[in-house]
């Protein structure tokens, strides 16, 4: 699933044509460079979140607000693994255009006792019948809806300080009692 495009290919297709643009001769014109496939990624971890029933606040100024308390869970990847501490949550907002915005904050505790603050913003949307099935807590193939997040991390633990310095993306799967997020580090 990972896209692996060599940096050299990127240089050829994207950077070199843009050199001409950036020199200023075409400054007032649109860049004519072809957009390239620049993104490579690698698995960071899979996060499994266990959640309590949502607190449905109803219609608020920006949409419909639901708050989902996080009760626990776990995470595992090549470089870290551990448990999710209870106490975080996901402050969901269903927008008038049908897109569900996610705003999650949780604390991870690694198996060597480091604490990591993780948060993400994300979006979830799909065909009405698929979203309705999710609302009935049915299992749905995650390929049938779009559920993507942008996790970021904070930690003071030296061995996990790399988390403070990366951009990452998550692919989510809603489950009846929580969610599973497959998170990739953008290289």
């Amino acid at each position: 699933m990972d896209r692996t495009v060599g940096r050299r290919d990127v240089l050829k297709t994207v950077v070199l044509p843009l050199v001409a643009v950036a020199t200023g001769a075409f400054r007032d014109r649109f860049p004519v460079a072809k957009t390239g496939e620049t993104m490579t990624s690698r698995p960071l971890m899979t996060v499994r979140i266990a959640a309590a029933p949502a607190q449905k606040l109803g219609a608020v100024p920006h949409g419909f607000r639901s708050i989902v308390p996080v009760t626990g869970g776990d995470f595992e990847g090549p470089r870290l693994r551990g448990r999710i501490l209870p106490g975080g949550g996901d402050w969901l907002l269903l927008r008038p255009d049908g897109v569900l915005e996610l705003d999650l904050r949780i604390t991870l505790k690694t198996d060597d006792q480091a604490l990591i603050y993780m948060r993400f913003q994300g979006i979830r949307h799909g065909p009405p019948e698929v979203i309705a099935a999710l609302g009935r807590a049915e299992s749905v193939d995650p390929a049938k809806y779009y559920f993507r997040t942008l996790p970021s991390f904070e930690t003071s633990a030296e061995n996990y300080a790399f988390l403070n310095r990366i951009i990452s993306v998550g692919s989510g799967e809603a489950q009846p009692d929580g969610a599973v997020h497959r998170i990739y580090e953008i290289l």
Partner: protein
Amino acid sequence: MTSRPLMTLQVFVAPPERLGAVPHGTRVIAPITGGSFEGPRLRGKVRPGGADWTLLRSDGVLELDLRLTLETDDGALIYLTSFGVRHGPSEVLAALGRGESVDPSKYYFRTAPRFETSASQYAFLNRLIAISSGDRRPSGPIYSIEEVL
């Protein structure tokens, strides 16, 4: 993770406003004077008036917090915000600081742009997650933005 090209965005910046040491690090604000963007589904100009509110953290990571307005060639306005990070070996960052051209593969410069628009033909931008790879040029950054599929 799979993605596809969304656009290449070139931004021109004015000389930065150096605010110096603030509670979270060293704050530098780079006003945006213009630019342009082009991709398979949209193209146009960057309106003057946005900026990147950069913060150099104590761990050497530069946090980027960009806000700007895009205007497409068919007259739609798109609000773009982007959070990102930039870091690398100290000699590479020093060269960037001196305004030299540096191979972007020598440092990590990645951002996560978000979009808002009321234009129905660009409403797909309201519904996607995107990531970008940046290339800091003396005139300003160039971002290769990809839609996360």
